[in-house]
């Protein structure tokens, strides 16, 4: 079973991002949405974890949620792909189940 994991919390506020990365199996996908998108921004404390994670997981961030928060796509860490809602739907369809880390 391959999973799509979503994280919607800022990594600076809650531990959803950390818990998700700890429990996401190799080869699964992680999509950062809502306040979760802050984890993908380069130059912050989470950048190292994102880089580490992208070696074994596919990491995505929801573009509309980045834009809403004033973060341009080019602020995102290397190894993270930006998708729109259609991309979110595709990811949900491509994986066997969706686990939302709230």
């Amino acid at each position, binding site marked *: 079973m391959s999973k799509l994991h979503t994280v919607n919390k800022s990594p600076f506020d809650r531990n959803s991002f950390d818990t998700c990365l700890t429990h996401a199996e190799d080869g699964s996908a992680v999509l950062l*949405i809502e306040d979760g998108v802050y984890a993908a921004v380069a130059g912050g404390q989470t950048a190292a974890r994102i880089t580490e994670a992208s070696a074994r997981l596919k990491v995505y961030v929801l573009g509309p949620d980045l834009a809403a928060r004033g973060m341009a796509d080019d602020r995102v860490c290397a190894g993270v792909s930006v998708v729109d*809602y*259609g991309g979110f739907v595709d990811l949900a*369809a491509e994986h066997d*189940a969706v686990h939302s880390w709230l």
Partner: protein
Amino acid sequence: MKFSILVNEGPFTHQCSDSAYQFTKAALEKGHEIFRVFFYYDGVNNANKLAEPPTDDRNLTANWSALAEEHGVDLVVCVAAALRRGLKDDILASGFRISGLGQLIEAGIQADRLVTFGD
């Protein structure tokens, strides 16, 4: 593919309902089927037709109703969660219906994917 959606928060405090709505709309645009959208916890407040958000802001309740109208999306509000929060049939927006939690389990069984949006 058949999707079911679970919405756990109301339309005003948290982005969850917006995300769920945008996902549902995108899935329909891609030709997928939405088996059901189930509203639980404060998510039941999405169905309150008495809410009047400022006219220059989006109206999620109206947006959900439009999805039901245009695409026949089944919008189900949990009866137990709704009673707690004072949401009854007479204030239910069009396209929504109140039913039991069994409808959520059925949505999980029948759909290929259940996607949860919450806080």
